[in-house]
């Protein structure tokens, strides 16, 4: 993509505002203009600007302002501005390990020696980054074979399987913990299988490995989905050309296919790192306090109302996460895939067509992967379902589901009931996807134009992924639920609409990430032609650009829906006092001193999400993307 053409695109922004009547009056139109009034035209011309303004407003209202009210406490203590909290934090070896000595003014050489020493201390922050890196590697390792399978092979149930890969994304940690202990625990499925084939028991629980595997459970599907979409977008023609020019299949893969898939893999990896860097309840559930991460301390400090330190830690998290995202964004900008597939690579049957090594080996590898995937993904899910039908005496029972029915039938108005939770979840998910889509598209358009600092804008737009969820919740409470006093009136925001907005903010970065690479790679001459023919910028976006990057749009929408279905922190804050609770909240509220009813509700979440995604992606057509 040449810079020149993008530069021209950049200047289009001003065209919108000063009106380009001469163009509009040209006889050739993209649509039949009979029914369109001048007013409609004018609105359309301003649509993009309007949408951008609305996006900024929503972000400011339900994200930047609320979060700002909390983060500012790290530098304003008792009304005075200070960097003391940060100074103390950075110099604390508990958090920064050997690096703290650097911040404390020791010579870099001594610090490097310390880091290379056998008894080096990583500190909480260092450890958090370390486990996030391991989790990222594991997620990519488990996600890529799935992408290979889904993108390159044809088999019955392929699309359903792909739809269901999003399910792990929405599961609350309590469910995953139940599933994981039952699978990898001392008396779990894994040891039962190993015992059956005569292998000794393995003790995986309460180790770093357990955490990393659980993180892969959540994030490998993300890697798989983004990579599958990129792989499916590879143009078969390009591969055929390479092959006809004498390239071996391996060479064609390396030079044609791989470069188009890398960016997606890296995006999955970058997002996985950020998500696992901010990990919280699962670490203590499966690992234990020896493996506590930064967010554990943010939670503790916030709970004990020690906001200055909590906010400072959250800022540290934010800076590290945004740096990783920023590095990825720089890469993305330089390695945009310039052509999107018009004709995807043909899928192969899952059964080998001939007994040759080339036919058999990849399938054999996938078979091995299938076993691993069954253990990592299916066994915990099966254990969750089993837990929901297991009574206190260990026997099978439907008692927990009976509780759900009974609560639904006889529950008091002030109690959380299952059906409203399901209904609210579905409504919020649909509504927040509808809000997240235009937000994401607008930000994608803004950040794919050429100007100084656009990558900074892009990184800041990703902030909802990188800010501590605990502090976002606190910010929403202060900024929205309590409201602001203006001229004797207290303006407060809460309830369903605020929840939808908060979910949209949490999900829209996915839309940006899935749409922006496509927009960046579009052939600019298409847009220029459309503009020359009198189309407004918004209309070009709607009629030309978006249809061409549609798989990315649908993919982003799917993630936005998933985020909404699984969201807890913001929802629970904004649903206060209102009948606006969702399924994850119901699960939490049903935890008493018996976990059965909560696991039954968890299975409801599992099923509702699974069915929703199969339906969504059926409706989305074959180009359902990520």
């Amino acid at each position, binding site marked *: 993509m040449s810079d020149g053409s993008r530069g021209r695109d950049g200047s289009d922004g001003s065209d919108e505002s000063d009106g380009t009547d001469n163009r509009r009056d040209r006889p050739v139109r*993209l*649509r*039949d203009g009979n*029914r369109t009034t001048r007013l*409609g035209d004018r609105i*359309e011309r301003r*649509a993009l600007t309007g949408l951008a303004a*609305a996006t900024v*407003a*929503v972000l400011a209202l339900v994200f930047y302002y609320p979060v700002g009210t909390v983060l500012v406490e790290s530098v304003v203590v008792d009304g005075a501005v200070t960097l003391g909290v940060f100074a103390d934090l950075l110099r604390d070896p*508990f958090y920064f390990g050997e690096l703290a000595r650097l911040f404390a003014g020791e010579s870099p050489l001594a610090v490097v020696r310390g880091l290379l020493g056998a008894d080096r201390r990583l500190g*909480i922050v260092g450890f958090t980054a370390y486990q996030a890196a391991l989790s990222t590697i594991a997620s990519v390792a488990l996600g890529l074979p799935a992408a290979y399978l889904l993108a390159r092979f044809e088999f019955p149930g392929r699309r359903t399987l792909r739809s269901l890969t999003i399910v792990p994304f929405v599961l609350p940690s309590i469910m995953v913990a139940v599933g994981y*202990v039952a699978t990898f*625990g*001392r008396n779990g499925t894994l040891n039962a299988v190993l015992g059956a084939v005569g292998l000794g028991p393995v003790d995986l629980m309460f180790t770093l490995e357990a955490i990393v595997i659980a993180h892969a459970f959540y994030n490998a599907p993300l890697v798989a989905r983004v990579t599958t979409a990129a792989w499916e977008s590879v143009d078969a023609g390009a591969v055929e050309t390479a092959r006809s020019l004498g390239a071996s299949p391996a060479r064609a893969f390396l030079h044609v296919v791989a470069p188009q898939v890398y960016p997606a893999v890296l995006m999955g990896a970058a997002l996985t790192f950020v998500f696992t860097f901010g990990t919280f309840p699962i670490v*203590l559930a499966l690992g234990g*306090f*020896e493996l506590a991460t930064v967010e554990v301390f943010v*939670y*503790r400090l916030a*709970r004990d109302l020690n906001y200055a330190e909590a906010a400072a830690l959250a800022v540290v998290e934010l800076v590290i996460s945004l740096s990783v995202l920023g590095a990825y964004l720089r890469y993305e900008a330089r390695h945009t895939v310039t052509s999107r597939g018009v004709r995807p690579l043909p899928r192969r049957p899952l059964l080998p067509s001939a007994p040759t090594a080339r036919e058999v080996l990849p399938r054999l590898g996938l078979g091995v992967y299938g076993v691993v995937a069954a253990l990592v993904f299916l066994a915990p899910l099966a254990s969750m379902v089993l837990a929901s039908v297991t*009574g206190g*005496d*260990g026997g099978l029972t439907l008692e927990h589901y009976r*509780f759900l029915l009974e609560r639904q039938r006889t529950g*008091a*108005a*002030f*109690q959380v009931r299952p059906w*409203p939770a399901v209904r*609210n979840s579905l*409504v919020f998910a649909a509504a927040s996807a*509808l809000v997240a889509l*235009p937000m994401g*598209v607008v930000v994608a358009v803004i950040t794919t134009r050429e100007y100084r600092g656009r990558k900074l804008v892009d990184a800041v737009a990703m902030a909802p992924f990188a800010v501590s969820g605990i502090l976002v*919740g606190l910010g929403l*409470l*202060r900024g929205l639920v309590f*409201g602001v006093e203006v001229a*004797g*009136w*207290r*303006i*407060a*925001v*809460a*309830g*369903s*609409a*605020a929840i939808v907005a908060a979910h949209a903010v949490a999900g829209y970065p996915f839309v940006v990430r899935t749409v922006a690479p496509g927009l960046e790679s579009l052939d600019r001459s298409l847009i220029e032609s459309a503009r020359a023919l009198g189309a407004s910028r918004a209309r070009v976006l709607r009629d030309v650009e978006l249809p061409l990057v549609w798989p990315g749009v649908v993919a982003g929408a799917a993630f936005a829906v998933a985020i909404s279905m699984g969201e807890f922190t913001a929802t*629970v804050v904004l649903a*206060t006092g*209102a*009948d606006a609770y969702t399924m994850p909240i119901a699960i939490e*509220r049903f*935890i*008493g*001193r018996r*976990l059965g*009813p909560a696991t039954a509700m968890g299975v409801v979440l599992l099923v509702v999400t699974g069915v929703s995604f199969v339906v969504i992606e059926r409706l989305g057509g074959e180009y359902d993307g990520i």
Partner: protein
Amino acid sequence: MIDETTEADGSTGRHTRRRFIALGGAAGVAGLAGCSAERTGDDGSGGSGDSDGNETNGDGSDGDAEDAGEDGESETPTLTVATYGAFIDAPSVSPGEWLKGEFESRVDATLEWATPDNEVNHYVERAASGAPIDADLYVGLTTEDLVRIDEELDDDLFSAAGDVDGADAVRDGLRFDPFERAVPFDTGYVSLVYDGTETEAPETFEGLLAEEHRGDLIAQNPGGSSTGRAFLLHTISRFGDGGVAADGDEEAVEGDDGDPDYDYLDYWAELQDNDVRVLGSWDDAYTSWSEGEAPIVVSYSTDQVFADMEGADLQEHRIRFLNDQAYATPEGMAVFADADEPDLAREFMSFMLEPEVQGEIAQRNVAFPATDTAELPEDYAELAQEPADPVTFTYDQLQGSLDAWITAWERQYRGN
């Protein structure tokens, strides 16, 4: 913008797509509209700006309008009682529904529950932000809550209980608020629960350090779980704090073990060497314990009540009071200083202390009554066990120390 149906190449797919996008914009606008405004200083009992013009809410959310279609303008006053979620929602421990029915049948008032997720911190935040407190009293305060609240806020969040009928019956050891704002209504004891078919739990703290109990104990993070915190405090009571929280003039806590050179951090170092597991929440720990990851878990001394409910083998749910002690976790209730219905709130507190109600709360919340006049079934004590020697730190002991104790523990335990 969305009504143009005759596209030049209007395939239906494209059309749907457009609607989709345009509707998104509309919903965005709706999202912005979800706000409310209220006169400040207005003493409407609601106050939390709930709002939401959205469809889904059958029973609206705001204070007065909620119950049984009763009109907020009727003469019936509304008492808003804030508490934690499990008090009304958890299938195993929730006296909320019964209490509401019973109270409303006795008093001409409507009781409304409020259960913000941050629990009492929600009201601390409200007070700190200058937002109105939209509840009359809080049910479920602990000693640590009061310490934290008093450290955080300059003004009183709660007012003194004053004259509450029946408050005399509260057992002496449970009165945890030196300023007599919070009145205890029940208590629990944090003890060990163990699977008697796997191991025989030790009778003393020291016993947990024995080789035969290596890797046997699962506890919870004191920074995030109340059972974990209670167990940590119990070890401090037993072994002393070694002066961790002393800032000069303050006295160190001396342990019952009588050894001034051995404190809770020493004990925890040995416990960690013996492979204790410190997980996150109570349910993390209990899940792992139930799955047989380890035979002993820090939990409540009422565990057998639940086991019995589910028909589990009581041998697998045995209680151990280390050194015949358990850490008491009394729960109190207090009237908000800004309560709209302070008299009604005090009436509710008296109601909570009545012998019959005390018995019901204890059974429904699976805890122990706070009064010595409670009416409990004869066999309640068979399954719900009380220690011979309950221990608990007073408000004064916790004040200024709790945070330092936890921080010191975190740094030692996680410091590797």
